[in-house]
Every structure is written in structure tokens, then in C-alpha cells.
């Protein structure tokens, strides 16, 4: 990543970000740096405090009432339908998402089911790695459990999370010193099993960062994150 070295230069990049003069790519770099580098979030917050008062110059405009209606629908507040089955139960998965360890246990259940299905010998001592993807240091959001033997990751989204219908959430892995590698689009509201290619699995170690970004529907058109990074976290052993 092309992150400037000196702290003054970093601070200036934050100022440029808040002012809004950076390119799409540069904006993504800052957002990623904010997740990974100490002091960046504080620097951005200070620039926001400095420049955002300019918004007072903008005269208020009353939004049409259908925006509120659409908003409620998107948050699922207007629906009363019930979902059936444990697998499809959001509250079950959200509960399991509470801690990485619990998510790992949930994976064990998934594995048992898979094994029963495929009638294969269970793998001896599967190796798990976990990552808690935090939203700007504000606690756990997505939980990812890596099952190295089956080359898959179970990703559990945060509680009450929703995105616009014309967007997707996409999962990325960022090996140390490398560019993000797409792991594909994940369901924004339900747990997803992400299959990982063997080549990618080799890079998926305890120094790797996993991240979720907001992308146009169907995923990033460029192969690199184009939308804001929603959450990121380091992979850890258990």
C-alpha cells in the first residue's frame, strides 16, 4: 500500500480525504489505513471536526416521505414474516456470532452435517483460524472462522445489518504487504460459507487481515475494493 511515511504527511492525507479531493483508489487506501494504522482514525476525526462546520452553510431541504418508508422497509421493520428452521434463523446465527469461539463450535456442527452428507471419513484434527472483523474499533461485527482443511471460511454478519438492494458485501483477504485478494461476495444478512482456493489458502495465515467492503451489486468491478471498508480484522489461531 502506498501509505505516506511521515505523520505530517499522513495527517495531510486525512485532511485531503475529509475535504474530498482524493481519487476513489486513494480514498480506499485511507480507509484501509484507518483500520490498520494507529492514529489515523483520530487524525480523520480531528479534520472532520475542523471542516464539517462548513455544512452549516447548506440550507436544509426536506426529504420526500417515501425515503423514510423505503428506509423502514430496508431495515425490515415493516415485515412480520417468520423464518423457518434453525439454519435459516438469523437470531441463531447472530447468537453464534457473539464470539469467535462459539462460531468455531458452530463450524463443528456445519462440518458434522457436511460429513454426514458426503459420507466421508472425518478429517483428523482440523485446523481452525478465527478473525473478528471490527467496525472502526467499535467491537465485533463480522466473525470469520477459517477451516484450513476444508479450505473454507464461515462468515457471520453482524446483528441488524442491512445494505441497499443495489449493493453487495464482498470479503477480502489482505496478506501482509500485499494487495487485497477477493474471496467473493458474501450474503449481507446470513452466514456464508466462502470457499478458498488452495493458492489463497497458503497466504491465509495469522498475519493476514480479513475485510468486508461495500460494493456495487455483484461485487467489485475492478478486482480491488471500490467501496468503503465496513470492517477488518486480523486472523488469529485458536
Amino acid at each position, binding site marked *: 500500500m502506498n501509505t505516506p511515511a511521515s505523520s505530517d504527511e499522513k495527517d495531510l492525507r486525512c485532511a485531503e480525504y475529509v475535504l474530498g479531493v482524493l481519487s476513489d483508489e486513494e480514498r480506499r487506501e485511507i480507509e484501509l489505513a484507518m483500520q490498520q494504522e494507529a492514529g489515523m482514525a483520530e487524525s480523520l*476525526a480531528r479534520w472532520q471536526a475542523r471542516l464539517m462546520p462548513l455544512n*452549516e452553510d*447548506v440550507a436544509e431541504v426536506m426529504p420526500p416521505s417515501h425515503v423514510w418508508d423505503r428506509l423502514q422497509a430496508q431495515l425490515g421493520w415493516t415485515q412480520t414474516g417468520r423464518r423457518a428452521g434453525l439454519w435459516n434463523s438469523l437470531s441463531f446465527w447472530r447468537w453464534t456470532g457473539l464470539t469467535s469461539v462459539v462460531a468455531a463450535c458452530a463450524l463443528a456442527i456445519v462440518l458434522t452435517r457436511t460429513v454426514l452428507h458426503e459420507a466421508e471419513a472425518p478429517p483428523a484434527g482440523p485446523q481452525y483460524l478465527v478473525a473478528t472483523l471490527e467496525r472502526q474499533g467499535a467491537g465485533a461485527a463480522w466473525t470469520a472462522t477459517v477451516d484450513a482443511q476444508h479450505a473454507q471460511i464461515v462468515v457471520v454478519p453482524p446483528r441488524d445489518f442491512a445494505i441497499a438492494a443495489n449493493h453487495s458485501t464482498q470479503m477480502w483477504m489482505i496478506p501482509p504487504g500485499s494487495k487485497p485478494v477477493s474471496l467473493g461476495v458474501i450474503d449481507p444478512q446470513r452466514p456464508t460459507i466462502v470457499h478458498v482456493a488452495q493458492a489463497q489458502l497458503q497466504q491465509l495465515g495469522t498475519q493476514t487481515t480479513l475485510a468486508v467492503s461495500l460494493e456495487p451489486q455483484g461485487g467489485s468491478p475492478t478486482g480491488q475494493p471500490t467501496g468503503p471498508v465496513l470492517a477488518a480484522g486480523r486472523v488469529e489461531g485458536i
Partner: protein
Amino acid sequence: MPSRPLPGDGLLDAHRADTLRARRRTVYSQPGWNMSSRQPKEMRDATRTPTSSDTEGRDDLDRMLSAVALRDRAAFETLYRRTSPKIFAICIKVLRDRSEAEDTLQDVYVTAWNQAATFNPQLSSALTWLGTIARNRAIDRIRRRRTVSLDETTVEEIVDESPTPAALAQLSQERQRLELCLQALPDIQRNAIREAFFTGSSYAELAARMSVPLGTMKSWIRRSLMQLKTCLER
């Protein structure tokens, strides 16, 4: 700002409609306006001291957003009612397209619902927090547009005016301090900063629009930002 009535905004609007062109040439040459940061007193004298209702309104919104983090739907609805006119205006300003601004507005509040737990009232106010999300979403959106649809609009129409002293007097202390520091910048750099903030344009777009080399635009903006920082920290 919905946290309190904003007579300044209405005033600014009416003023804009009436004297947009005329003011452009005259405003900076008015005595007492082109003041340096060494003479803040006369501006302070002209300002209204913030009433306790200002702070209360701001605290109210902060409390509401903190309640939203605890999944309080009623607080969310009140927060939406009180802040969405400002946030919608910010989206329209950058996007200059009502339908896109509506989509973005919806997006902003979905994000607010999802990420309210990341709001820290020690670091930011609810309105700054929401305004930041709105600007980021709107800027991301215009960056992804294939072409910059500024052709039909002339620079004259989109360059924003600094508020008049009368309008400024109705705004927050933070805004007034920022204006003092903006006024201490060379005119062209101040215009570049305002243009950048209100249009969300990239360096390249700004350079093209103001007909200067990219390097010049970058150094104007970067120098201005550093000057603003020093001035605001004084």
C-alpha cells in the same frame, strides 16, 4: 442544523437568490471583512453568543444516536426527523441530483442504524458524524460516475459564496472560527477549498475547472489545509 432553528440558512438562501453575482465582487472588499486572524474581535462582537438551547439541541441528538446504538427505533425515527433535512441537503449539494440524493440519504441512515455503536460523543457530534457519512457516500458515488456531469453548469453557478457577516453571526462558534481562518487565506485558495468541499471534486477536476495545472491545485489545497490547521489550533 436541525438541532436548533437556523435562521442563517434561510437568510443565506434569500441573499444568494438576490445578490449572488453582485456579492461575488464586493464581499471581500468590505471593510472589516477581509480581516486577518489577528483581528478577530470585531467579528466576535458581531456574533451571537450561543444560547443554552444550542448545546441542549446538540446533546439531544448525541443522546438519540447513542440510544440508536442500543437498537432504539423511536430514537432512530426522531433522529431521522430532526437531522434528515440537513443530511439530504448535503447529499444534494455534492450529487446535484435529487433521485441519487434520495438513495444516498437512505444509505446514510441504514449505515447510521448499523454503525451507531461506533459513534463516540467525546470525539464528534451526531450531526458531524451523520454529515461525514453523507459526504463519504456522496463523494464515493460521484467518483464512480463515468463522466463528470458538470458540463451544463458553469463554474459561476457552483462556486459557493462565503456567508455574509450577518448570516455567519447565526451560525455556530466553530463555523465562525473556521470562517476567520478561511478569510486569512488568499482569495483563490479559499475559493478552491470551498469549491472542493461543496462539490466533492477531485484534484484533477478542480484543476480543470479552475484552469490551473494539477500540481498548482494540489499545492494550493495542501498549503491551505495546513494553514487552516495552524490557525484553528491557535
